[in-house]
């Protein structure tokens, strides 16, 4: 039977975008399947509700209470073409060098020379992505950021401008609801649209139901991926085949697609396959908002334009601070705020805070958590479950970070502070990459240890949580995969 495509890529975000573009550029016949809609700059407005419904997936909550643990985390991600890069804050930092040591510790990830995989192995790919997406130092701080930084300078811990995928035409009109000026260079603009011009076929609003995996009749009897079944936007069932499949649905979704594809049964729960969904990390986050005595209108800005990384290494505190943040819209701001006991606010107290929304600016705390979470299917109900403990160590990191935030905000002139729920947009590690198949799902070039032709390329492959916004690292790994494929299985003849 003829094969429809050279490659099918499931997902168009940070993991799927760069490799899709590279393969299309090399003349490969590719299909991209995206579960979300296809929206472009003209569709992106400050109508927050519409954006939350069309561009954001409904937050998924952890179910830690089933483990007898306190502290649930709201996990948010994008759901349109471009994935989370359409609604992200565009912070583009490389993983710090010390994270690579942790990667080797976690999964014994090695480079092609059999050495521990290190920063130099990813550096050329970081450079390519930075060039493709126009990463630059973002110096145009808004009033909220300047005000906050004044306070933190006083207490001896200044913020620094972030690197961002933002062109100079940014008019600071918001990032979280899609960029209306195309200043933000997510994967839709940088990779997917160019790939379409090069002939890539995009199926959007299409839900993958199964990756077709079967055992080969060959002597090694290894499982092989050969195609994808999905429901297209008209509701019709489609089945397409390809030489290789690249699963890039994100660290939250990829395990579920593998479970639905029956991979555990087909390869009979090998040590590697039993790792699917395990080792899940999220950079658990919380926001501390400060109320100031002057109007900041901090929603008219580029969120997260300053970063403080001096405490990010776990030995130094294990938290990364980013500012300034007020969620860009009143609905999201109202949703996340909690009282002193961590109970969501409502009623007249919340109303009063909302009526002073113009005076608030906040700081995002991302902690260095452990890869101790798990995404799995309940054996009785078949429903997906997510465990991601907020451990005593995590809580201690939050406590230290919050104390510093309160000190800095007070020095900046904030009269009171306000906390948020635990949340995360940095899901990672549920299908780790490594050279030891007992500790990882995919090998050092993203191919499943136990399924030929099935590659995973999204945040799920990151071996242990990184102390930076992960999108740049995911894109760099995606370019690295593109290089590998074009020099091996998809090598031009």
């Amino acid at each position, binding site marked *: 039977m003829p094969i429809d495509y050279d490659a099918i890529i499931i997902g168009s975000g940070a993991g799927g975008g760069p490799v899709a573009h590279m393969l299309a550029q090399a003349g490969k016949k590719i299909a991209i399947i995206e579960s979300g809609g296809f929206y472009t700059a003209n569709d992106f407005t*400050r109508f927050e*509700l519409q954006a939350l419904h069309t561009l954001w997936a409904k937050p998924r909550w952890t179910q830690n209470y089933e483990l007898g643990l306190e502290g649930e985390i709201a996990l948010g991600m994008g759901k349109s073409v471009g994935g989370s890069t359409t609604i992200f804050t565009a912070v583009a930092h490389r993983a710090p060098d010390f994270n690579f040591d942790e990667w080797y510790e976690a999964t014994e990830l090695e480079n092609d020379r059999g050495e521990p995989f290190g920063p130099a192995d990813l550096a050329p790919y970081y450079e390519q992505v930075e060039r493709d997406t126009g990463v630059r130092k973002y110096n145009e701080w808004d009033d909220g950021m300047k005000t906050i930084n004044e306070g933190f300078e006083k207490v001896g811990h200044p913020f620094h401008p972030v690197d961002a995928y933002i062109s100079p035409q940014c008019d600071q009109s918001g990032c979280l609801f899609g960029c209306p000026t195309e200043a933000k260079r997510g994967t839709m603009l940088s990779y997917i649209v160019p790939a379409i011009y090069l002939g890539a076929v995009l199926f959007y609003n299409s839900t993958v139901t199964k990756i077709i995996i079967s055992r080969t009749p060959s002597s090694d009897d290894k499982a092989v991926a050969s195609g994808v079944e999905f429901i297209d936007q008209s509701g019709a069932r489609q089945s397409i085949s390809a030489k290789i499949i690249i699963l890039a649905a994100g660290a939250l979704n990829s395990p579920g697609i593998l479970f639905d594809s029956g991979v555990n049964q087909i390869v009979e729960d090998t040590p590697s396959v039993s790792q699917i969904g395990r080792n899940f990390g999220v950079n658990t986050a919380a926001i501390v908002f400060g109320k100031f005595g002057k109007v900041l209108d901090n929603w*008219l800005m580029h969120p997260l334009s300053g970063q403080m990384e001096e405490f990010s290494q776990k030995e130094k505190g294990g938290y990364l601070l980013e500012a300034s943040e007020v969620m860009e819209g*009143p609905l999201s701001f109202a949703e996340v705020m909690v009282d002193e006991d961590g109970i969501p606010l409502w009623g007249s107290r919340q109303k009063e805070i909302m009526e002073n929304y113009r005076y608030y600016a906040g700081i995002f705390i991302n902690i260095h958590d452990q890869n101790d979470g798990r995404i799995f299917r309940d054996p009785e109900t078949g429903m997906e479950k997510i465990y991601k403990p907020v451990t005593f160590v995590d809580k201690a990191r939050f406590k230290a970070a919050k104390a510093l935030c309160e000190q800095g905000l007070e020095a900046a002139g904030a009269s009171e502070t306000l906390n948020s729920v635990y949340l995360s947009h940095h899901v990672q590690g549920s299908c780790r990459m490594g050279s030891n198949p007992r500790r990882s799902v995919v090998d050092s070039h993203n191919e499943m240890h136990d399924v030929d032709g099935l590659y995973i390329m999204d945040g799920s492959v990151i071996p242990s949580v990184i102390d930076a916004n992960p999108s740049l690292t995911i894109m760099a790994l995606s370019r690295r995969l593109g290089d590998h494929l074009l020099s091996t299985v998809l090598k031009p003849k």
Partner: protein
Amino acid sequence: MTSENNKHYFLTKDEAQFFTALGILVVPAGKDPASSPGAVEVGGVNYIDSTLFDFPKGVQEYFRGIVKLINEKSQERYRKDFASLGQPDQEFVLRSFFSDPLTRERAFDLRSIVLESFYSDYHDPSYHGITAWGAIQFEGKRISGIKKDWSFLKNWRDSDQQK
């Protein structure tokens, strides 16, 4: 519409009363409702009704189940439905829903839909007063004057047809 005595598409009369009470609790009007309206003043119950009307059956039943559960808890403790309780008792019931890990996510979803019915800047087609964004002065470039298309809501679609 669900019945002659009930002007809603999906909610029963009791459920509408529940969401009216919850709307007053979660997003109350200020002392002067004209300058500081709450969820009920702008028509938040109709937003919730129309939103639920278009939701898939499973989600409709999910929300219906939460309302039922909260009413059962209210009955268990106070022998009254949630809508008939005084505000301190309503506060207690809602807070206990958030405190119990087994019901926390459902409490979030319930609070979310009420917050949406106001802070999204929603208002009924017939309401011409100040709305959330005006009340909190959420404004500026690309915000002020933005056209919001509410036609995804059944009540707005029907209202447009009547024009």
